């Protein structure tokens, strides 16, 4: 199933339309063929499969879709870097570049709606009481995945480690000009020392995870309105 069809489908099923069971199954097929995660983003609570009538609140998907198209300046059906860079708020975000890069893995130049949503799906708040499904795969908005996103913002050379220079770069981006390079360096040293457990002068993902053990990542890395 092509993206266009999918998005068309979201489009036609605008806010809070009620679907019959067969329709729901159709939709599910269409979507699951493509990517089931998309639906979990769109249908947080309202999809009660037990009832006969299913209300689909696809408003979030629709909104994201609208936003996607608003960002897509020349209607090419996908976004490139400069579309992202044109968001003025993002331009003045200290980590703006890194965030944009995170949307373009492996030298990709374009991102379609589907991947766009899939990346954003990481920032959904975690469900309070997740359904017990024994062999369900780890949800994309899990703590680990959220952490991974943060980690890859640091890890530019993708070697699975935050080296000293990588950390220093990020720090330099985030800290005002008043702080001198030496101060930053000693802070970096200290930071690495603090987190580094195996003594390789770099922070691996495990170490990263461990150092943020006490932090409420689920809360911090979630956007409320994507619920």
């Amino acid at each position: 199933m092509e993206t266009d069809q999918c998005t068309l489908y979201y489009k036609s099923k605008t806010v809070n339309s009620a679907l019959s069971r067969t329709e729901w199954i159709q939709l599910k097929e269409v979507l699951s063929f493509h990517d089931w995660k998309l639906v979990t983003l769109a249908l947080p609570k309202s999809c009660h499969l037990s009832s006969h009538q299913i209300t689909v609140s696809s408003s979030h998907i629709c909104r994201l879709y609208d936003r996607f198209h608003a960002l897509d300046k020349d209607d090419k059906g996908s976004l490139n870097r400069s579309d992202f860079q044109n968001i003025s708020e993002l331009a003045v975000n200290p980590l703006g570049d890194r965030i944009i890069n995170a949307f373009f893995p492996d030298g990709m130049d374009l991102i379609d709606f589907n991947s766009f949503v899939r990346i954003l799906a990481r920032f959904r708040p975690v469900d309070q009481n997740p359904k017990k499904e024994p062999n369900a795969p780890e949800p994309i908005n899990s703590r680990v995945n959220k952490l991974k996103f943060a980690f890859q913002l640091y890890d530019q050379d993708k070697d699975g480690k935050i080296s000293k220079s990588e950390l220093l770069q990020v720090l330099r981006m985030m800290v005002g000009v008043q702080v001198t390079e030496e101060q930053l360096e000693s802070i970096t040293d200290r930071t690495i020392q603090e987190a580094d457990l195996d003594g390789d002068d770099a922070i691996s993902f495990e170490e990263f995870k461990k150092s943020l053990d006490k932090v409420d990542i689920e809360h911090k890395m979630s956007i409320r309105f994507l619920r």
Partner: protein
Amino acid sequence: MYSVHEESPAVLTTDVFFLYLLPPIVLDAGYFMPTRLFFENCGTVLWFSVVGTLWNSIGIGISLFGICQIEAFGIQDINLQENLLFGTIISTVDPVAVLAVFEEININEQLYIVVFGESLYNDAITVALYSLFKYISQMDQVDSIDIFLGTADFFVVGFGGIMFGLLFGFVAAFTTRFTANTRELEPVFVFMYSYLAYLLAELFSLSSIMAIVTCALTMKYYVEENVSQRSCTTIRHFLKMWSSVSETLIFFFLGVTTVTSKHEWNWAYIGFTLIFCIVWRGLGVLVLAQIINNFRTIPFTFKDQFSMAYGGLRGAICFSLAFLLPDTFPRRNLFTTAAVAVIIFTVFIQGITIRPLIDYLNVRRTNRKLMTINVEIHSRAMEHTIAGIEDLCGQWSHYYWKDKFKKINDRFLRKVLIKDNRPQSSIVSLYKKLELQNALVLLDSNGGISGAPSLTSLQEQKPTKRETFLPEEVWSMQELLSKNMYKIRERTLTYTRHSLPNETRTKEILLRRHSTIRKSMRKAGTWQTPAAAKYYSLPPTVQNLQPRLRLRKYSLTGDDDGDDDIASEINFPPARPRLQLRAKEPRRALQPPRNKLETVNEVRTDSRRTPMVDYENRGGSAMSENSKGRGTGTKRALTPMRQFGLFNEQGLKNKEKEDQMEMEEFRQEALLAAISEKDANIALLELSSSKKKKTQDEVTSLKREKDRLVQQLKQQTQNRMKLMADNYEDDHLKSHSDQTNHKPSPDQIIPPLLDLNQNRSKLKLYIGHLTALCQDRDPKILQGIAPPTSYHHDDRAAWEEELQKMSLEQLEAELEKCEKESAELQEYANTVLQQIADHCPDILEQVVNALEESS
């Protein structure tokens, strides 16, 4: 005092206040209102200012009326209407005091704008309510129809004011379209039209405050594009000054009145007023925030609500309204006294304690002591990320109207209100652009704002020292971090009462990003010093190779080689600076003739020159003077070497080759620099946000130029690689031809063979890098091309051993084979490079880096 006939100086009359003191304050607020922010939070602002003010006024009024019923306090004569009037007066939150406090406590911009908008609009609402209640309180009988009329009136007054404001805003904008010849009058138009809106609204008994605020809001956008930079500055500064003067005067009167006027002190009434003020505001914020949170993208936290409730300081307007009650009003003195008491309590007690309280809340919530530096840094990074993602998703629902307005604005309003050809006013934007660029240059030259640490600085770092940090040090680090890390969402210029908006932080980030972009683009540029030196004086391999080569040559031509070592010693270090000087010429030549940005490039070229000069100083003191006479640098640098008289033809040829190689290298470098330059400019233009057609044209032309440069770079890389190989090949060929004349001995063949082999292995290494890169990127690139067979076998040690045993013929055959293999390898590398250039030119730079590494 003789001149004022010993009268009290505190003569604040209604006229003076409303006609002269109030307008500047609200005009200032309206003009400097952060528009985008305001409209994004428009609903919340209106909710708090309208409903909140009504809630407070009625709540306080009725509860005070309840207090008045208690006989013991002796204030039964105050009726309900009067209490409501007083409630209205006392519930006005003052923007001045509140914002001053809020600036102190670093709150987020959402909260800031809500409180700012609230205090601005409740001015308007209080004044409307005030006249309503004042009217009612003077009537003996109140019918329900009166209340209904009053409410209707309330809306008519508000919307009428807005209409007037819009009208005059547009008129002002339209007028400034034609003031190109009378720049001096531009500020006057702005002030006069706003004042006119204010007076006319007053005349029609509409809300004059709404009128002037709307007027300022409307015209600001257009006026600032129309007027000259100077007028713009004048307007801004004059507004700020004027409003400050007004405020100061009002507080003056407040002080004087506190001392001079007749007070009527009633413990019960004043005490209960204070309590009700705090209680009703607290309740109001709590309830209203709960309701509005359901509709907000970013809800108010408890801390926000606390700041809002506790930050409800009363100020000038409250005082003026109380003071301006008619003399005939019963209990006027009591009201004035109560108002003054509340103002003094809120401003002094609450104003002073709010900061420690907020700090306490902060500390309790985050408990910094327990936080490690890791947590601190990573949390902030994550906050930035989330903020970024939020911006990316767009905050819901505002965007529809924003887009609609933008469309209308672009299609109609701008056309009518803004000058068509704006040679002068575009100076504003150009000025901004240039300012940015100047800062960029500054950045490049001395790192006024240093970007991400350059590769060089990282390379120079000593191997990490494992020193332990004292707890105090860690603590101070945390302090430093928490103070200096950018707060999230601090990005728009917020309104401050007494200073013009400043954008330093935003600028800082933008500048840094540009410099990082440039640096990363110029990653190759950083090899200027270390990497290039690595190539030419490659300590372990090339350096002991070079004398050997020469040794052979000299022996062949029968020259005395006694001073050779000295020559090579002199040769190597200065080779850098001399050629670096030359490198600038191609770089300059590469600068395509261009528009206004050129000057900046020019300056930047200079700034880049600085480190080179440094290097030259280090390279050889004899050479340092030469750096000044740039044009003749090359020649003069050569003279000291000539003195040794060692340079026979071949030596010079060798020299030439080296020169050529370096030329190639620097041409490449220059190309890279030029490309990064282009990128920076493109980024700059794109980010300078003007969507004008001209800018976009500029961007496209820049992009085209960049593409051309990339093409050149590709060419250059190929050339250089070829040269690299040729260099050694030439040596070999020469010796080969020599060998036909003289009978060569195996000893003479082996060294060039070794060289060739070394060269070959270098090529292999290089190809390895290339293919690895391609595999990373897209395996398809390598489809259909296979490496030559020689690429795979590599057993150097054994080969060298064998070489020693070989006969002369075998050696010569080996030599030929090596040559052939080299050629094959080179051919292959070229093909790969071509493929890369065809499929994904963007990794060309990586290729260049790979080239560096392999050499």
